[in-house]
C-alpha cells in the first residue's frame, strides 16, 4: 500500500498509552469467568484424586457414593476406558520418543499423586464433593521415582515399566554437525579456562489466579464447551482427535480467562471428562477446581538439572559452550511437555558469539505432576544457566561481569547475526540497553559502595546482579516448528468485518487472558483504517466466531497475530481504493488514502472510508464483476522468530547473619521493538519480573519422599504478595524487529526470562568474597545462610511459608518473608 500515508505522529494510535477497553467489566464485577456460568439443569462434576504417587488400583468401590444425596453418576477409569482415548502430546521431539498412554481418568495404575481416579456428577458441587469421600479405592503401592539422576540410572525403578526406561527421549544439537560452528569438545580442550557448573531449575507452579473451570452444554447435534483456557482452537481440534467427535460439532469458548502464563496452554483430563459425562447424561455439566486440585493436577513448569560448561581464553573471549540437561517430564507427556526444554536449546548461547556449541537434553519420567509450558517455557531455564555461568567465568577470569559480557556479545553493527545455534537475530542493540540500564541503576556508584561494605566487614553485604538476555519469541515460523517435529503451525489469523455504519469488527485468532489484546488490536486497526479507536470491536475466543487461530502463548500474539490484523486491514484498503476510484471516476493510481479518507490527487474530490464501506455494502454501483462488501481476512506466518533483548540489573542486600535477602534496586531496560501500547508493555514487564523474581527467591513445588506435593495450597507455595516485591525501574530502547511490518517483538515473557539470573547473580555477588559461588533457588534465608556457613547436608532445607496469610508484622522488613523455615 505504497500510497497509504502515515498519520501524523500525534494522531497515531500505535504508540499511545490507551487505557484498556477490557477494564470496564473487570473493575465492576460484570465478568464472564467460566465458573460464573449457570445453565438450566446444570450438573456438577467432582474428581477423586489419588493420594499416592505410584500404585496399582486393585479395587474401586462406588456403591456407597452412588447412594449419596444428589448424586447422578459415579464413574471410574474402567467405565470410560473405551471412550476417553489418550490425552494428546503435540510435540514428539524425536522419532523414537517413548510416550505412555495418557488416560484422563486412571484405569488400573496411578502415576502421580493428584491423578484423577474416579468422578462424581451430582446436582450441586457440594453434593458431588461429599460423595467423593464415600468412594473406596484400594491401592497396591509401587516404587516411587522422584529424583531425575536416580531415574536415569541403569537399575532404576520405572515409572512406566511397559516403556522399559525412564528416559523418554534424548535430543541433541551439535554445531559441528549442523554446520553452524566448530566441535565443542575440541574447543573446550583447547581453552585456557574452562568453567563447569550444575544448576537446578526448581519445579514451579504457574498459579494463575483463576482456578480452571469447564462447562459443557451438550445438544444432540453439537456440543459447546466453555473453558478457562489459553487455547480454544487447539482444544477444539484435540477434543475432536481424542474423542472422535466431528470437529464441526464442537464449539469451544474461552470467555474471560483469569491468567494463564502457559498453565492454561493445555488439553486437560478435566476438559475431556466433563465433555464425556455431559454427553452421557445429556445435561450441561460444570467442573471447577479447588486451588489445591489446581496445584496437584494442572501442569507444573521448569524442573531441570543443568550441567553447563563454558570455555574461554584468558583475555575473556568465550570459546565453547556445552550443555547437558535432564528435564523432568513428570508422569505423562502433556500437550507440549517434551518440547519445552528444546525451546531452550537455541537460547543457551544467548547474545554471545560462541564459536562452538553442543546441547544434549534427556527427558525423564518421574512420578510427579506433568510439566509443560510456564511463562518463558525453556528460555528462562537457558537464560538462567548462561547468565549465571557468565558471572562464574568473570569471577574465574577476574573480570567485571559486565566487562566480560561486552567482550563477547554481538555488536549492534553485526546484525543480522547468525548464531552458533543456527538462528538469525535480525536486530538488536545490546550496548544501548546496557548503557541506559547502568545509568538508571548507578552501576559505578553501587560497585564503589560494595567495595566499601566489603572493606568494612558490613554484616549486610551488597551484591550486583546482571542479566543481559535475549529470547526467541513470536512463536513461530510454521516451517521451523515442523522441522522441530511440533504438530501444529505457528501462523495467526485475523478478519475484519466492515459494518455499514462504518464501525469495525475485528476477529482475531489469538486468545487473550489478561494481555489487553482488545485495546491493542483496536489501536492497530484505528491507525491502519483511520477509524476512531472506539469504533473497533475485537472478537476472540469463540471458535464459532473466530474459527481460525493458533491462540496465545510464546509472546506470539502481537508479533504474529497483530501482524495478521495489519495484513487484513491492508486488504480492506486495497479493495476500498478500487471502489473509491470507481466512485470518484479517477484512476486508481491517483487515489490517495490518509486519515480515513480517499482523495484524488490534485483535486478536492474526497470520499470517506465509511462512504466506501456503504457503497460496497449496498453494491449499487461497483466495478463490473466485483463482489459486494469490504470484509477481508489474512493469515500471517512469520519467516523468523523475534528477538527481544535487554539488560536487567539487580542490587540486593544480603544479611550474612540471617541469610535474608532484600532487593534494594531493580532496573531493567528492555528492547521489545516497536510498541503499540507502552502502558500495557510496562505492565507485562512488571508481571514478568514478579514471576522471575519469585523463582529466584520464593517459589518451589516440593514433594516428600512418597511423592506427595507438600506445597499444594497458597499457604505452602509462596506466591509473592505486594510486600515481597520491590519497586521496579523500567525503561525501553527501541530497535524495530525486521521480521514483521509492525517492527514488534513481543513482551509477555521477557521479564520472567531476564530477571531470575539477575537476582541470583546479585546474591552470589554479595557473598563471593566469602567463598560462595552458588545458591540454589529459591534463595530462601536458610539456603543463603547454609551457603555462607558451608552447611550443605547437615541442615535440611524446608520450603518457606506461603503468601497472603497476613503473616508479616508491619514493623518487620518485607524481605524477612520466606524465613519462617
Amino acid at each position, binding site marked *: 500500500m505504497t500510497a497509504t500515508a502515515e498519520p501524523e505522529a500525534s494522531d497515531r494510535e500505535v504508540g499511545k498509552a490507551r487505557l484498556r477497553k477490557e477494564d470496564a467489566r473487570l*473493575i*465492576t*464485577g460484570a465478568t464472564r469467568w467460566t*465458573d460464573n456460568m449457570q445453565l438450566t439443569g446444570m450438573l456438577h462434576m467432582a474428581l477423586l484424586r489419588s493420594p499416592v504417587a505410584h500404585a496399582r488400583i486393585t479395587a474401586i468401590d462406588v456403591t456407597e457414593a452412588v447412594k449419596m444425596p444428589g448424586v447422578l453418576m459415579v464413574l471410574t477409569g474402567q467405565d470410560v476406558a473405551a471412550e476417553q482415548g489418550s490425552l494428546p502430546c503435540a510435540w514428539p521431539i524425536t522419532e523414537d520418543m517413548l510416550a505412555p498412554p495418557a488416560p484422563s481418568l486412571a484405569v488400573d495404575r496411578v502415576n502421580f499423586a493428584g491423578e484423577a481416579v474416579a468422578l462424581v456428577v451430582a446436582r450441586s458441587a457440594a453434593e458431588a464433593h461429599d460423595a467423593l469421600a464415600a468412594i473406596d479405592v484400594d491401592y497396591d503401592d509401587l516404587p516411587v521415582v522422584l529424583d531425575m539422576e536416580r531415574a536415569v540410572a541403569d537399575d532404576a525403578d520405572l515409572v512406566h515399566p511397559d516403556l522399559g526406561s525412564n528416559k523418554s527421549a534424548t535430543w541433541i544439537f551439535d554445531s559441528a554437525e549442523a554446520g553452524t560452528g566448530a566441535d565443542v569438545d575440541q574447543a573446550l580442550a583447547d581453552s585456557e579456562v574452562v568453567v563447569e557448573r550444575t544448576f537446578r531449575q526448581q519445579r514451579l507452579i504457574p498459579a494463575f489466579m*483463576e482456578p480452571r473451570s469447564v462447562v459443557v452444554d451438550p445438544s444432540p447435534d453439537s456440543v459447546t464447551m466453555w473453558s478457562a483456557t489459553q487455547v480454544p482452537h487447539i482444544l477444539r481440534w484435540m477434543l475432536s482427535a481424542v474423542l472422535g467427535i466431528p470437529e464441526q460439532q464442537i464449539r469451544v469458548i474461552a470467555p474471560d480467562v483469569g*491468567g494463564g502464563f502457559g498453565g492454561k496452554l493445555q488439553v486437560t483430563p478435566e476438559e475431556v471428562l466433563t465433555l464425556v459425562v455431559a454427553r452421557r447424561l445429556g445435561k450441561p455439566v460444570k467442573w471447577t477446581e479447588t486451588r489445591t486440585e489446581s496445584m496437584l493436577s494442572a501442569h507444573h513448569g521448569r524442573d531441570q538439572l543443568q550441567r553447563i560448561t563454558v570455555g574461554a581464553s584468558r583475555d575473556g573471549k568465550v570459546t565453547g559452550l556445552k550443555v547437558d540437561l535432564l528435564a523432568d517430564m513428570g508422569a505423562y507427556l502433556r500437550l507440549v511437555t517434551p518440547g519445552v526444554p528444546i525451546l531452550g536449546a537455541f537460547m543457551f548461547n544467548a547474545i554471545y558469539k560462541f564459536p562452538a556449541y553442543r546441547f544434549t537434553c534427556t527427558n525423564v519420567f518421574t512420578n510427579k505432576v506433568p510439566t509443560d509450558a510456564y511463562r518463558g517455557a525453556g528460555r528462562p531455564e537457558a537464560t538462567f544457566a548462561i547468565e549465571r555461568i557468565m558471572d562464574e567465568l568473570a569471577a574465574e577470569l577476574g573480570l567485571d561481569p559486565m566487562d566480560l559480557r561486552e567482550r563477547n556479545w554481538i555488536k549492534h553493527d553485526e546484525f543480522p547475526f547468525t548464531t552458533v545455534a543456527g538462528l538469525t537475530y535480525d536486530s538488536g542493540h545490546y550496548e544501548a540497553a546496557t548503557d541506559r540500564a547502568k545509568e538508571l541503576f548507578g552501576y559505578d556508584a553501587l560497585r564503589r559502595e560494595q567495595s566499601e561494605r566489603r572493606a568494612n566487614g558490613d554484616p549486610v553485604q551488597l551484591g550486583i546482579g546482571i542479566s543481559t538476555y535475549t529470547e526467541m519469541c513470536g512463536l513461530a515460523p510454521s516451517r521451523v516448528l515442523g522441522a522441530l517435529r511440533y504438530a501444529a503451525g505457528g501462523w495467526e489469523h485475523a478478519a475484519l468485518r466492515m459494518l455499514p455504519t462504518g464501525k469495525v469488527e475485528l476477529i482475531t485468532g489469538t486468545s487473550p487472558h489478561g494481555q489487553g489484546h482488545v485495546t491493542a488490536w483496536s489501536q492497530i486497526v484505528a491507525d491502519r483504517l483511520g477509524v476512531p479507536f472506539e469504533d473497533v470491536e475485537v472478537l476472540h475466543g469463540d471458535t464459532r466466531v473466530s474459527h481460525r487461530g493458533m491462540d496465545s502463548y510464546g509472546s506470539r500474539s502481537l508479533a504474529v497475530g497483530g501482524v495478521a490484523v495489519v495484513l487484513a486491514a491492508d486488504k480492506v484498503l486495497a479493495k476500498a481504493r478500487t471502489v473509491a476510484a470507481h466512485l470518484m471516476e479517477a484512476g486508481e493510481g491517483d487515489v490517495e488514502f490518509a486519515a480515513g479518507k480517499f482523495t484524488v490527487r490534485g483535486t478536492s474530490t474526497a470520499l470517506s472510508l465509511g462512504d466506501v464501506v456503504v457503497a460496497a455494502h449496498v453494491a449499487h454501483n461497483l466495478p463490473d464483476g466485483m463482489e459486494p462488501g469490504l470484509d477481508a481476512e489474512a493469515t500471517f506466518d512469520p519467516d523468523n522468530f523475534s528477538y527481544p533483548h535487554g539488560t536487567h540489573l539487580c542490587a540486593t542486600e544480603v544479611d550474612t547473619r540471617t541469610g535474608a535477602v532484600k532487593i534494594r534496586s531493580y532496573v531493567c531496560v528492555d528492547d521489545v521493538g516497536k510498541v503499540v501500547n507502552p502502558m*500495557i508493555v510496562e505492565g507485562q514487564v512488571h508481571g514478568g519480573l*514478579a514471576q522471575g523474581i519469585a523463582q529466584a527467591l520464593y517459589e518451589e513445588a516440593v514433594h516428600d519422599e512418597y511423592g506427595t506435593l507438600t506445597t499444594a495450597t497458597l499457604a505452602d507455595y509462596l506466591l509473592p504478595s505486594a510486600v515481597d516485591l520491590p*519497586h521496579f525501574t523500567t525503561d525501553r530502547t527501541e530497535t524495530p524487529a525486521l521480521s514483521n511490518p509492525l517492527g514488534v517483538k513481543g513482551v509477555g515473557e521477557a521479564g520472567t526470562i531476564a530477571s531470575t539470573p539477575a537476582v541470583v547473580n546479585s546474591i552470589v555477588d554479595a557473598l563471593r568474597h566469602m567463598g560462595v559461588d552458588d545458591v540454589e533457588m529459591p534463595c530462601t534465608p536458610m539456603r543463603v545462610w547454609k551457603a555462607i556457613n558451608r552447611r550443605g547436608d547437615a541442615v535440611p532445607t524446608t520450603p518457606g511459608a506461603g503468601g*497472603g496469610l497476613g503473616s508479616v508484622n508491619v514493623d518487620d522488613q518485607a524481605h524477612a518473608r520466606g524465613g519462617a523455615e
Partner: protein
Amino acid sequence: MRITVTVDGVDYSDEVEPRTLLVHHLRERLGKTGTVVGCDTSNCGACTVHLDGHSVKSCAVLAVQADGREVTTVEGLAREGRLHPVQQAFHRNHALQCGFCTPGMIMQAIDLLADNPDPDEDEVRHGLEGNLCRCTGYQNIVRAVRDAARQMRPGAGPDAERVDEAKLVGRTPTHTGGGGE
C-alpha cells in the same frame, strides 16, 4: 437456616445450609459473580467483600454469620453510573491485567484507605498483603491506590458504601474473617 442479608443495598432472605460460605451464597444463590474464589485457604483475597463496612475474605465467613448484616461487593460500588474513585484509579493506572484478583483488591484498597487515607508506598503494600495478584507485580496497584487516595481525601468508607456512619464509629483496624492485615 433462614438468613437475611443486605447485599449492595438489596435485602435477600434465603434458606441456606449452615456450612455455606458467604462467597458461595453470594455467587451461587444471589448471582453476585463479581466476587470470585481463588483459593481454599484464605490466602489470595480474591473473594474480599465488605461486611458492615469492614473488609472480610468471604471464603472465611459463613453465610449465616452475615445474617442481619450488610455486605458490599465490587458490584455495589458504582453510584448513579459513576465508578468509585478506587475503580477509576485501577483503570487509570493499569492496575489490572486478567482482572481476577481485581474485585478483592479494590475492596481491600477501599478498606485500607478508610483506615489510612494517605498511605505511603510501604503502607499500601502492607495493607494489600492479604490479596495476591499474579499478573501485575503489584506496582500499578500500589500506584492506583495512592492515586485514589489523592482523589478521595479524606477517606472512602462511609461515602462509598451504603453503611450507616454510626456503625463505623469506634472502628478498629482488626478485621473479622481474615481481612488484609
